[in-house]
Structure formats: C-alpha cells, structure tokens
C-alpha cells in the first residue's frame, strides 16, 4: 500500500551554511525499518530535484527510530548570502512529508 511519509513519520529541518538537514522520525519505532528501506538518499536527491545542487547524505539513528539527511548546496549559498525566502531550509522537512512510500497493510 502506498501512503505519504506523513502517515508514519514527522520531520524537522534546518541549516548549517549552504547545507540543509532533515530529521525524519517514525511515530512508531516499528516503522523504522520502513523508513530505512523507503527513504533513501537517492530518492531524496531525485525528489528535491533542482532545489538540491549537491549530494544527499543519510545517517541512521535506530535508537530514536530516525534518519538524518544532509542536503548539500541546497540553500542558495546559505546564511546571509542566500536570496531564498527559506534561506534556512526550515520548510524542507514539511516538503518531504508528501514523499510516497510503500508499507505493508
């Protein structure tokens, strides 16, 4: 069954210079393996398209049922240089909530 990521996880995003990070947290720790399987660095890179000029890195935190992503060169130079309305990537986490993932019923 396909569902949006928001059905099983919540997110928070922020910045470090021109890099945005997105934390993805399973509401129920039992869904953590689904996150690991479905929410990959390659999928995020394709999903965000032109917004992310650099690479996407993924880190696993099984103890929190969470993944952390770094989206490099994603904030128009970042900090005070950026001309973007969301120069800190504060809304990137919300954007990810619509990612379609496959879960078993």
């Amino acid at each position, binding site marked *: 069954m396909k569902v949006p990521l928001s059905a099983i996880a*919540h*997110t*928070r995003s*922020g*910045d*470090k*210079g*021109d*890099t945005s*990070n997105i*934390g993805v*947290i399973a*509401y129920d720790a039992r869904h953590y393996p689904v996150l690991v399987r479905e929410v990959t660095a390659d999928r995020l890179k394709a*999903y*965000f*398209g*032109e*917004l992310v000029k650099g690479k996407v890195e993924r*880190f*696993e*935190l*099984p*103890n*929190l*049922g*969470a993944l*952390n992503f*770094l989206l490099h060169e994603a904030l*128009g*130079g970042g*900090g*005070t*240089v950026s*001309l*973007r*309305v*969301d120069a800190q990537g504060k*809304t*990137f*986490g*919300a*954007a*990810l*909530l*619509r990612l379609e993932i496959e879960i078993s019923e």
Partner: protein
Amino acid sequence: MIRIANGQGFWGDWLEAPVRLIEQGPIDYLCLDYLAEVTMSILQKQKQTEPHLGYARDFPPLIGRIAKQMLDRNVRVIANAGGVNPVACAEAVRKLAPELKVAVVLGDDVFARVDEFLAKGYSMADMDTGQPLSTIRDRILSANAYIGAFPLAEALATGAHVVIAGRSTDTALALAPMVHRFGWSDTDWNKLAAGTIAGHIIECGAQCTGGNCQVDWQHIPKMAEIGYPIVEAEPDGSFVVTKHPVAGGRVHADIVKEQLLYELGDPKNYITPDCVADFTTIQIADVGPDRVRVSGIEGRERPATLKLSISYENGWKSIGTLVYSWPQAFEKAQAADKIVRGRLCKLGLEFEEIYTEFLGVNACHGPVAQPCPDPPEVQLRIGVRGQDRRAVDRFTRELIPLVLNGPPGATGFGDGRPPVREIVAYWSALVPREEIRTTVEVLG
C-alpha cells in the same frame, strides 16, 4: 539534581521567556543563548562605530528586570551575550544591577591575531569550501574561537551571579553548571557528551517544548503561554527534560526527538570543544506528564583543534516584492520577472546572482510543490546580489515602476524601494586548541 533552564534561543527570542522561567517555578541556572553564526559580525560593526557597544543589548535590561528574583531564588545566569565586547556588556549589567557579582570569560576574540596565525602556517581553510583564508584576508570583520564549558565553569566557581561569555558554544552554556556542580573532569567523555546533548536539546528554547513542532501542533496546550525548557541534571549524566507545570506547551519524547535532529550533521560525531558526542547512543522515554528522560549517552575524546567563527564582507544584496492578483496572477508575475531581468540586462548591470521566487506557487518547496492552477494571488520576489553596490542599488529602482508600466494589477509596494543590504558572510576554520587561552575577570 540541578535544574538548568534556557530562556533565549537566539538574539530576538521572546523577551518574557526568561522572566517566566524565574517566576513560575524552581530553577538553579538560567542559560541565555544570543549568538547565531553571523551575530558576531553585526556586533563587530557596531563596536567599530560605537566602542562601548558590540554585545547583545537586550541582555543588561533583562538582568536589571530579574536581579531581585535572582538573589531571592538563588538563580545564576550564564549567557554568551558578550559578543565582541564582553567587558562593556558586564559594565552595563553592573550599572543596572549593582547588587550582582558578574564574571566575564575572555580570550575567544582572535580578530587581532589572524595575521599571527597565518604567519604560523595555519591556513584556516574554510571548512565547507577548502579555500584558504588568505583569499578573504582584507575583508575580515571578526574572528572568534568557539569556547567550551570549562572556562564558563571556572567563572561559576568565582561565585558570580552572572557569567558573560563571547563566542561560547550554545551547548556549553548548559554543560558548564554540570561541570561546576558535579565536579566532572575534562576527560569524563560520556558525562560531558550527556551534558552537551542536554544543551543541544534546550539551546533553541521552546523548540523542545512544543514550538515549531509538527506533532499534533493544533492541540499543544496554551501555545501563547509556552514554557521554555528545563533540564533536571543528575551527577551520572542522565537527565529529564521538562517545563514548569503552570506554563503552556508540551514536553514529549516525539518533540524532544525532533529537536535532537535539528541542525544535526553526522550523529556519531557531534564535535564540540568539550567532547565528541554520539547521538546514536541516546535512550529516551516519556516518564510522566511533560517529562522526558534521556540516558545512556556515550562520548569520545575532544578534538585537538578549536573552530573559529570568522565573518567577512561579501558584497551587497537587495530583495524586492510585488503582489499580483487573480486572474492569471502567476502568469503576470512571471511576465514581470522577465521584464525586470530584460531591463537590468539592457542597463549592462552585472550580478553574481538574480533569483526569482513566486510566493503562493512554489517558493518554499520548488519542484515538490503541488500545482495550484490560477491562484487568487502570487507574490513576486526578486533578489539580486553582487560586489558592485551601484548595480544592486539600481535594481531597487527597476521594480516599483512595474506598477504603472508592467502587467496589470500589481500591488503590495507600500514600502517603496527595497533596501540595499551589505552581505556579511560566515567562514569556519580550525586552529590548534593550545592557541586559545581563556581568562576570567570578575566585576563587583
């Protein structure tokens, strides 16, 4: 157990938060985090024109306001409000609260030592780009080393009611009272990592008590009265995150997890001047209403280097907006963008970047945004940046004329031409730890 609260997540955070933390229940230490990456450069500019400024100016009046309660309730304050002029900050505090003893931590400011460092062969290459510092040497505005919890703990040991630092790390503010009270050594890596992570959880104020939280946000109690966070720290490194019961907001494991991941890089290598904390060792559990227990944290040896926060001049920018209404609001905004770019091009102006966004269509989420055919209104937002101030200034004169000479129905130009702003950019680099020697000075 000691109670460590944080009442300020950045310079500009809610003025009432620290006052309520003192008034609404017991706390032992009140941390106030004022510094973002570029704040130091703004303060450096202020100090250049006014030598008695260069610190967070909200801070002395706040201490004046809470001085009596601090003494009555035995609450001590730790803040990185000193910016590039911690002594002037301390003197301003003493003027408004002469009954308080104030300690200042000095030694983080290395602006005057940049050439000495270069001569010693430290390239101070940018940690993001790898460029050597020499490429921007003549444009540097400020240079400060991030300092850790031990200099702050040393200041607490003087018995001061208020400890003022310059560029201390955000996490050190909360770790310092644990080091001071529990007598942790500078090689207790697991405990130092635990205190660091406690600091990380509360450093953004209400972001761990229900602010900016996706989980059930519509039902977070009394958000207008939101309580700022309190850590109940134990000598073994475990701690509980909570808030005063009377305050609004919510503390829940989901919420604390969101904040743990905020602005996080590699979770196994959270590097501070005090230790390297491993976020994959954190154990977290709800243990009562608005009480989250955190334990099991492990850390490793601190690095041999300290990070510098350097700011430098990097040109000029301006961002202007116009609003177009239905019908064809998006098409009108796109047409207007083309006209502006065409006119700038004909004028022969050069920019490093011209960036256009359409608010109401896809400004936040870009290609991920769902299509919204014929929206009721769209805000056109055009930004330019470059090294030539005159070019940026000319741009500000090319936007407003569109109200009369562009697509129909433009509005929202009430403030006239957008301002031209100087870009002060951020540069991070490493130097050997032994180069940075801190001292503590006591006033009063």
